[in-house]
């Protein structure tokens, strides 16, 4: 198609007549097509925008692909790798619900997460904001936290059980230990990113240090802190599973262990589904909370 060098692909047809009357463009040196530059290709442009319907279409395609993979795996006859069909999984899920087990497991696990992760976030916010704002605090805590961060929290499970027994406290402690160091460091990064000008402007408007910490540094960090909470929540669930695998009477991970004893693969799959759904729901809820609390920080 004879297009002028400046004409885009979309208007090529419209410009073909004037292009013909112009001197023909110089022979393309490097490109394969006619005209200068590299022609954009739909879906392959880095960092470019996509029309809304294309996004939804691709998202649906991704989910459909996973579901198809599941169907295929379930239909494959195998004596060792037994995959329950989506239908069986759904039945198992309904049974868990009607027995009331799903609800009691959800609340038991949810409560552990709630307590453990709230403590972890509280420490993360206070220490993180202080570390991001005061070099003295950062210098004091950076080394011990960097060290503790590399000690796998799951490796502390036996120790926690010998110290704290097998009831709720070791489980909550493990959730705290598995997330708090990440929370502190990441909140610290968020607080450090508060523009210096904002802090200085508030000083020149008469704000004191504590006011600046609360009203400026914390306020500016809030959307970032909610994002940190959102990202590290996955690690909290990981620690919950570790703690429930070892000693529990109820809880989502306990349900999986129990199902394993009876080879109830459909129940195991049902609980895995619940994990995924709960994760996505809390993720969306925290995103919503971030946008609600800080509409100015929306990307």
């Amino acid at each position, binding site marked *: 198609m004879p297009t002028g060098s400046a004409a885009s692909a979309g208007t090529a047809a419209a410009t073909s007549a004037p292009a013909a009357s112009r001197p023909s463009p110089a022979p393309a040196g490097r490109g394969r097509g006619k005209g200068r530059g590299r022609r954009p290709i739909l879906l392959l442009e880095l960092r470019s925008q996509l029309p809304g319907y294309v996004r939804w279409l691709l998202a649906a395609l991704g989910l459909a692909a996973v579901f198809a993979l599941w169907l295929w795996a379930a239909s494959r006859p195998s004596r060792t790798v037994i995959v329950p069909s989506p239908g069986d999984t759904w039945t198992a899920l309904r049974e868990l619900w009607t027995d009331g087990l799903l609800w009691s497991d959800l609340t038991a696990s949810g409560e552990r997460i709630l307590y453990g992760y709230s403590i972890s976030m509280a420490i993360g916010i206070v220490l993180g904001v202080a570390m991001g704002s005061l070099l003295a605090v950062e210098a004091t805590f950076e080394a011990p936290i960097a060290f503790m961060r590399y000690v796998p929290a799951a490796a502390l499970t036996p120790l926690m059980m010998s110290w704290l027994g097998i009831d709720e406290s070791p489980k909550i402690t493990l959730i705290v230990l598995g997330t708090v160091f990440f929370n502190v460091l990441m909140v610290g990064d968020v607080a450090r990113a508060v*523009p210096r*000008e904002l802090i200085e*402007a508030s000083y020149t408007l008469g704000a004191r240090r504590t006011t600046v910490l609360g009203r400026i540094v914390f306020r500016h960090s809030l959307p970032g802190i909610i994002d940190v909470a959102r990202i590290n929540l996955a690690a909290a669930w990981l620690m919950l599973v570790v703690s429930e695998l070892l000693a529990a009477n109820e809880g989502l991970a306990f349900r999986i262990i129990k199902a394993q004893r009876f080879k109830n693969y459909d129940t195991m799959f049902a609980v895995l589904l619940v994990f995924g759904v709960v994760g996505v729901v809390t993720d969306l809820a925290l995103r919503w909370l971030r946008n609600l609390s800080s509409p100015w920080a929306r990307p």
Partner: protein
Amino acid sequence: MTGAMRKLEITGLTKTFPGRRKAPPVEALGGVDLHVDEGELVSLIGTSGCGKSTLLRIVGGLERADGGEVLVDGEPVIGPGPDRGMIFQGYSLFPWLTVAGNINFGLKLAGVPSGRRSQRVAELLGVMGLAEHAGRLPRELSGGMRQRVAIARALAPEPDVLLLDEPFGALDAQTRLSMHEFLRSVWHRTGATILMVTHDVDEAVYLSRRVYVMHAHPGRIVDEVQLPFEPGLGPSIKRSPQFLDIRDEIHEALVSEDAAEREPASSS
């Protein structure tokens, strides 16, 4: 000098930044004296790195001097405070607060009762031409409008001195020109005492009553120019021969530094 009251007085101000790694220390200010009278608009002009922003930050209390003295109304400056309002180059508005909320911020800290506060905010919104944008967030405003909010916010607690650190440096040329008119009108209406740092000669000559020219290494004042223009004359004065002469004189004063830097042997 004039009999006007000295609002801001700086004497023998020195500041040296330690060099990074093995680099030698940088003498940002090597004994600077200057003053701003009550209700005067004074500019401090110099090439980047001459220490003019450091000087302003010291006056604002955001940086500490090594030696010398900064007096506001005869009292030494020891830290930041609402008596010295500061306006930065950009990005200093609180993004979660509306225009009115930003202007209100300093008043609230000062403990002004809420009735007086909303009255003062409304008044400033009017003066700044921001009334219809009171409920907007900073990210919804243009660059020029944001700087107007920043000026209103700094003026709200009625500071003794207003410090402007290249306030229009990040704006496009057209917006900058309209902000010049805006600053002039604010200055006339409020009678504020203003010290402005800039590297734009036209800006300094057009807006100020007096201009200090700074040279670097160490930062020092090399020239002081009193401007003869009647306040209140419009942008037409920019084409008057007198304006052009003064502009050239200041340009020369600035350039002489470059010559001195290129040939250190010839410098006095």
